[in-house]
């Protein structure tokens, strides 16, 4: 703990945070207007997003430059590591809310409506029998069909698990100082991630097609299915972008065997996304 105290890098003022706040506000206000059906909403969203992207380029760019200028000592490095770990913990809890909803519906609400609670079934939802998956007693969204877990989802599981391995190979290569292997494994990981996304998009297309008719509106099953896989897919997208940035930085030689927090942070994130997928595969698709 706390080596080289005087050397802890404290940046002076930065204008990126306020740019970020402005961008975020424009984005969200735009989204709210959009949801309320106002025409200007979507334009504002785009503008806000642009400001946010600009902010991220600027902010991360500054951090990368400072890092390359060796302004960060090992204590700063440790702060970054702690920061990333706790951030991932917060993400875990975000997903926990949706998994909680899934379990609550499966263990409590659906069985209650479907007869586990005699009064409720008898007086309000007569004739509905508890089953999972379900779109509820009102057959919301109409009849639907399930996606076969052993088709695309299983393939996607394989892809993500493999990507977990390739990124570990990349890490080993980095530690050995073998840059070309590092770059190779990084791009392999990126490609696996992108392929996963491609399949996921294809699967959503299938689901929404007339044949399956499985949508967000398909009762509690559709809700939990799309919210969980959707937020996961969003995280994979973010992760893939981060992987691309890190791959480019690897090619530029930004990292060495001892000094590569950026790489590791993304690797952790990628593993987190991977583990969430396993939970999804088991509880959303399989069981």
């Amino acid at each position, binding site marked *: 703990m706390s080596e080289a105290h005087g050397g802890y890098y404290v940046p002076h003022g930065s204008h990126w945070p306020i740019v970020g706040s402005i961008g975020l506000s424009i984005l969200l206000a735009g989204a709210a207007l959009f949801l309320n059906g106002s025409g200007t909403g979507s334009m504002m969203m785009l503008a806000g997003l642009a400001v946010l992207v600009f902010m991220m380029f600027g902010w991360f760019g500054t951090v990368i430059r400072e890092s390359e200028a060796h302004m960060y000592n090992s204590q700063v490095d440790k702060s970054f590591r702690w920061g990333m770990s706790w951030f991932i913990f917060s993400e875990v809890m975000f997903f926990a809310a949706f998994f909680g909803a899934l379990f609550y519906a499966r263990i409590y609400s659906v069985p*209650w*409506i479907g007869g586990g*609670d005699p*009064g*409720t079934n*008898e*007086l*309000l*939802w007569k004739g509905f029998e508890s089953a999972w998956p379900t779109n509820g007693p009102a057959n919301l969204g109409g009849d639907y069909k399930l996606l076969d877990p052993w088709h695309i989802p299983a393939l996607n599981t394989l892809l993500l698990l493999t990507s977990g391995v390739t990124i570990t190979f990349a890490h080993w290569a980095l530690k050995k100082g073998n840059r070309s292997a590092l770059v190779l494994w990084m791009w392999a990981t990126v490609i696996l991630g992108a392929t996963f996304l491609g399949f996921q998009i294809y699967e959503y297309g299938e689901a929404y097609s007339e044949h399956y008719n499985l949508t967000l509106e398909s009762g509690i099953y559709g809700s939990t299915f799309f919210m969980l896989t959707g937020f996961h897919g969003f995280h994979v997208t973010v992760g893939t972008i981060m992987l691309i940035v890190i791959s480019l930085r690897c090619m530029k030689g930004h990292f060495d065997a001892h000094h590569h927090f950026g790489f590791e942070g993304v690797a952790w994130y990628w593993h987190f996304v991977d583990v969430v997928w396993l939970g999804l595969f088991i509880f959303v698709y399989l069981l």
Partner: protein
Amino acid sequence: MSARTNLRVPQVLTGLALLSVAGIAAAEYGLNLRPGVTTIAQEAYSLHMLILWVCVAIGIVVFGAMFYSILNHRKSKGAVAAQFHESTAVEIAWTIIPFLILIGMAIPATKALIAMEDTSNSDLTIKVTGYQWKWQYEYLNEGVNFFSTLSTPKEEIFNRADKNPDYLLEVDNPVVVPVGKKVRLSITANDVIHAWWVPDLGMKKDAIPGFINEMWFNIDTPGTYRGQCAELCGKDHGFMPIVVVAKEQAEYDTWVADQLKMADAAAADSNRDFTMAELMARGEKVYTSNCAACHQANGEGVPGAFPALKGGVITTGPAAEHLALVMNGKAGTAMAAFAGQLNDADLAAVVTYERNAWGNNKGDVVQPAAVKAAR
């Protein structure tokens, strides 16, 4: 319940003073929980008193030590600070003793809770449905079915008339139950969450749309017991009271018979045609008690929340669509489906009224037969 609208400041101050010392003395001043009229209410009351006293006792010990120290261990009195700062024995003691006290509270609480949640072997079941902002009561075996809404005049609410003793705690149709019988309520809601609560009966249960919750009570003494909706349910949450009238069995039976007779009369209404004037008069009544809460008496609504019906697209459009909207409501908005709440004649009347009131002047009438056909 008292009729006093004047302030009783001296009594109140005495009450305040007393309560700082003792809960029991204060009870006379209406400061304490009400003992209620059912066994469960009384159980809740005695548990309440038990815990209150335990807290008062612990408070006396803790605050006693604190004030003793504040008075005596002050620098101005020349106190010199001791330097002790831990004692394992003491710390273990004051972890274990509160724990034991809590166990002492948990035992009677558990017993009471188990008794309260036992809704089996009831003599009578009433299905209670909460709406924005009224209650519906369906006596599942007797076939009685009615709505119950606030009957306090607007003049009193807007301070244009003196408030009567039951201000805000009075309804047009109270729930009537027989004394000495275990009454089970199956509670649900139609739109948002409400909660059914009459303090004297000792129980409160949320009315959740799509689910049935159960509670029970058994009243010994005939009387009128008043309560209110206890879960925020929108604009008029403060204005959906509950009145329970407990009657002797014989009187209760008469009441049931009367209710059934009235229902028959209403059903007969739905089989005949009305004149425009009849529909308008009836429609205004229905509108005032069912629709005016949102769309306002003048039909102008509340901008942004409740659309104006005066000159509205639907109210001046085709009658069939207008009727369909009122019967089926609009999913995902506060506009409820009234098909299950109003009978054919009432629906016909209110639609006719809306189409012709406030200068809408469409001139057309909707007859109960049309409603029946649309069901």
